[in-house]
């Protein structure tokens, strides 16, 4: 419960091949820096990147990150990577601002910086590959609640940390959309599971008991989602209280099949990685320029570049019992 306990020396590093020494042909050295290692979501994105890298053949891709998803540790990782002078960085940022100085330094050192999944301030990167807009996700989740329990649903949110950038924005957008589209819908409480499944479970347990009127839970985090689903199962509330999440298919497959939740949302993470790699590679070869208004991305086709150099992958995807077995990430 106290957030202070992290392994003191959990830190950064690379996974892939040993450092480039004598490559015959010039290869682009690209580091993929996720929020943290050991999370399947980023592994899936990496899979997409590898797929694209294979298509190019001239990319040496590394996967490096800290054990904990914290901006401080991510900065340490980044600084050590910059020391190695790679060609490009693909980053999912733990903090939109804290990473700015270090990424700027990277750019000053001539390194191409692209963010995906979680952005930093535009000045610190060239493109941001956006999986889905905040508005789109807020809308999808709230609509799901309205569809399942009606436009007057009493809902509650169980998020990660109050300081988590993406989650805070999603929550914001949900509230905004809710008041516009379903003025009678009511947000009863917001709780934070701190990216810890036991904590998420406890918070969910207490929340549904403390607010017996709650009908629908929204959990915009793949870490918290199974914990909340477990809480519903343990409390015997499955069916009475419904829920939806942002989560990955592999993690939630069993719950969906059991009927603990009907559907959840995400985007195709593999495609997200694929797109990020295409954009990065294009920047390195000069095929894509920072000022371009559209980019081409292999099997995905073409994507538009929005304001602030944001490239959108597409709308969020709804996973349910019928389609979940088509995905493996």
């Amino acid at each position, binding site marked *: *419960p*106290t*957030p*202070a*306990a*992290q*392994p*003191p*020396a*959990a830190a950064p590093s690379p996974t892939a091949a040993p450092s480039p020494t004598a490559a015959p042909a010039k290869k682009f050295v690209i580091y993929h820096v996720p929020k943290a*290692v*050991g*999370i*399947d*979501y980023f*592994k899936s994105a990496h899979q997409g990147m590898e797929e694209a890298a294979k298509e190019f053949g001239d990319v040496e891709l590394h996967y490096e990150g800290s*054990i*904990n998803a914290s901006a401080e540790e991510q900065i340490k990782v980044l600084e050590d990577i910059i020391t190695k002078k790679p060609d490009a960085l693909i980053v999912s940022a733990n903090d939109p601002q804290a990473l700015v100085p270090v990424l700027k330094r990277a750019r000053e050192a001539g390194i191409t910086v692209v963010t995906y999944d979680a952005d930093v301030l535009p000045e610190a990167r060239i493109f941001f590959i956006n999986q889905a807009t905040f508005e789109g996700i807020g809308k999808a989740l709230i609509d799901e609640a309205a569809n399942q329990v009606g436009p007057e649903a009493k809902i509650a949110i169980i998020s990660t940390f*109050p300081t988590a950038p993406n989650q805070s924005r999603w929550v914001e957008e949900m509230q905004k959309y809710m008041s516009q589209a379903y003025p009678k819908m009511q947000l009863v*409480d*917001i*709780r*934070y599971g701190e*990216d*810890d*499944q*036991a904590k998420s*479970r*406890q*918070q969910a*347990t*207490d*929340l549904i*008991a*403390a*607010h*017996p009127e709650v009908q629908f839970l929204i959990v915009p985090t793949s*870490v918290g989602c*199974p*914990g909340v*689903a*477990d809480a519903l*199962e*343990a*409390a*015997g509330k499955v069916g009475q209280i419904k829920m939806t999440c942002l989560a990955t298919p*592999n*993690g939630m497959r*069993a*719950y969906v099949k059991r009927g603990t939740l009907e559907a959840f949302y995400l985007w195709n993470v593999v495609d997200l990685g694929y797109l990020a790699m295409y954009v990065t590679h294009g920047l390195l070869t000069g095929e894509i320029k920072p000022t371009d208004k559209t980019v081409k991305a292999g099997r995905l086709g073409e994507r538009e570049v929005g304001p602030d150099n944001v490239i959108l992958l597409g709308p969020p995807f709804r996973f349910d019992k019928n389609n979940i077995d088509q995905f493996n990430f």
Partner: protein
Amino acid sequence: MGWKGREPFLLIVNALLIVILAATTPFMMRPDAAGGRVLDLSALRLLLDNYAATFIGAVGMTLVILAGQIDLSVGSALALCAVVAAQVSQMGWPVPLAFLAPILVGTLIGLINGAIVAYGRIHAILVTLGMMTLLRGLVVHLVPAGWVATSDAFKGVGLARPLGVSTSIWIAAAFALVVALAARYTRWGREIYAVGSNPNAAAIVGIRPHRIWFTVLLFNGFAIGLASAVHASRFGVIQNNIGQGFELLLITAVVIGGTSIFGGYGSVGGTLLGVLFLALVRSALIYFRIPALWEQAVYGAFLLFAVGLDIARSRAWARAWRGGTA
């Protein structure tokens, strides 16, 4: 020592908390269809259920602290054991084996901690600090995907409710009872207190402090193994960051329960009441609708206030005691 221990105080505070919660929130009394209020113990049961692993871990930690040592590796050990439990259950092993495997792993970790402390002659805080990092690295390394699923049969054990109470609570209660009795009535238990109170004096009366430290760390490993089996059997998936901050939670519960952090004084009962206190306060914050942003601050203030109150009380009583009988 009765008037000095924290047990009576915590008992009263916990009872008060429960009564207030029951009277003012849907904690135990929920509205029924007719508009009245009916007794419903499910929230309390779920609360105990969610903290069952904490109870078990805290009991183990109590012995370690009583003996004058500390174990910071419990969080990482919990994670490793839980991951093992999940994987074993996935491999289709029978449920009892899935329970046994994490216990074995935990005991092995305890054995290593204990052996280094006893034969390396260094304080457990140093060993377990290193172990905490090492094991967490191992867990992330073993579970690169971030999580492993538990089998349905295994999870079913955690959700089963023989005689209306979940298996987790049965296990925790039985474990705590046995350890509480052992601490008071076995030679080992008393030697733990003696070594924690004064290892030199213990050596003079023929107790081997290092042997005691070895055994409590070993035992704590066992306790963590058990805790993680209980923990894991309640989740559908086990994430590799599980148990982060567990050590601090256990230590908090132990010292709130009145055990001296320098060893030699305290009780298992106090620790149990300490865990219950922490759990109730955490939940109360939600029932009382404290905004989540201020939760931490209120929680901390509550801890400080409660312990401060108890210390003021025991000082006042000590004074009265002296004045009264002298």
